């Protein structure tokens, strides 16, 4: 879960140097969307995924064109402030509209799990994993194979040079942003399936996603996903060995360790010289 949200963050940060701290809040928005669609129409959450995709892509486009485009020109700090403001707005709005009580989804397969050897694997977690990997794969293909994907990669390195080639910075940024938000939406669907959640749940996710991005190396999209998985594993192991309450603390400690020992991330590399 951290992984998917992390990729979105990594993309947005890598291309536009915007720390989109509202990523977690958007994710929860996605979770609520899933919850309500499921509760009101009984459409399976996994189909919600397909529904949420265009919705969140569009939302991302609106966010960028409406909010961040103007602000991004001014500087990094206003962008962070804007993201923070957006986060607070979303959280409180959701709280107001849908009450702060936790929600959870129970489907026919929520409790389903199966054993592989001596390990119990929950069905939903497996599905989340598959979704993560697929989402990453799709983003990867987009970035590697399509012209616009290459434009995004180029522009994230040198926006000015891209403009000189005829690539509109505004369009590239809005595409990147949309994908980032769409990924948050997907992460949200995944969250709804797995945990109970409430409007404020997102903040911790934003933090963890940022940590995952750091683990993977800034700008490295695949790394962000792996970072997310790594973080998830660290947490699980930690809560198993030391006890649940320590899980968050362990994650943050791991982050500190990372910063001290290998700040560029596990897959990070220094930029090549042109």
């Amino acid at each position, binding site marked *: 879960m951290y992984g998917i949200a992390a990729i979105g963050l990594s993309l947005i940060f890598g291309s536009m140097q915007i720390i989109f701290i509202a990523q977690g809040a958007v994710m929860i928005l996605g979770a609520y969307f899933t919850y309500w669609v499921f509760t009101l129409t009984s459409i399976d959450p996994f189909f919600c995924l397909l529904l949420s995709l265009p919705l969140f892509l569009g939302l991302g486009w609106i966010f960028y064109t409406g909010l961040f485009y103007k602000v991004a020109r001014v500087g990094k700090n206003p962008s962070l402030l804007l993201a923070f403001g957006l986060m607070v707005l979303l959280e409180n709005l959701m709280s107001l509209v849908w009450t702060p009580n936790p929600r959870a989804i129970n489907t026919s397969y929520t409790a389903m799990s199966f054993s592989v050897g001596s390990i119990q694997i929950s069905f939903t977690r497996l599905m989340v994993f598959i979704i993560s990997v697929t989402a990453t794969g799709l983003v990867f293909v987009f970035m590697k194979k399509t*012209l616009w994907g*290459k*434009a995004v*990669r*180029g522009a994230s*390195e*040198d926006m*000015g*040079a*891209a*403009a*000189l*080639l*005829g*690539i*509109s910075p505004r369009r590239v940024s809005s595409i990147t942003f949309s994908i980032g938000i769409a990924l948050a939406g997907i992460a949200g669907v995944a969250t709804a399936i797995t945990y109970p959640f409430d409007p404020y749940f997102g903040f911790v996710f934003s933090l963890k996603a940022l940590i995952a991005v750091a683990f993977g190396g800034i700008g490295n999209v695949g790394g962000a996903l792996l970072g997310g998985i790594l973080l998830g594993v660290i947490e699980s192991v930690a809560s198993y060995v030391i006890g649940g309450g320590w899980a968050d603390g362990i994650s943050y400690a791991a982050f500190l360790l990372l910063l001290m020992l290998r700040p560029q991330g596990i897959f990070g590399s220094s*930029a*090549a*010289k*042109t």
Partner: protein
Amino acid sequence: MSLRLTLGNPLLEVIDVDVFYGDAQAVNNVSFHVDRQKIVALVGANGAGKSTLLNTISGIVQPGRGKILFKGSPLTNLNPEEVVALGISHVPEGRRLFSRLTVLENLELGAFPKRTRPYFNESLERAMSLFPALKNRLHQSAGSLSGGEQQMLAIARGLMAKPVLLILDEPSLGLAPVIVKLLFEIIQFLNQEGTTILLVEQNVHQTMEIASYAYVLQTGKLNLEGQPDDLIRNADFQRAYMGMIG
């Protein structure tokens, strides 16, 4: 005002242009023009305002005063994407390649404008024949190329947009003399094939050998201009560029 006679319609006309960065004036009342299918040089030292002037032409910066005409129509208020679409390719100072992308990907992005995409294969082949060193390196990252190869790639990338006017900002910077010689041969060849070239350089000697006309920019002002043969014999020119000729 330019002292040069205009034969027919020049491809590019810069008229009475001032460019400011905040309160600082980088370009002061500059006028010049570029005739079709010629190589026109703009020389000057660091900080003379050459790059600013080029950025104004390609739409990155807007002039505070004056206008710029391309094929007779004004470029005012156009953004860089629109300028490229009109047929101007600006290869910036320092190359500014996408170092994390491969050579091929850089070239693909060069052909980004819709108008140029149908001709991609053709443009690619032409680039390969002009710069054979790139052929074997298509899938290498641009950042791993040598300085000379990177400059070739930068120019090749600019050519992918099938420009009518190619603007080169200090292509010889940081390159060994042998490579620079090759580069200038290629620039001449491109011109012979029909591309109009605006060449900005500090390397005065070799520039004077291929340009048909040159302008000298000093602290934002056009102080001298003329045909290279005349300029080289001009005392003021020699004074300014003693170190750069020969």
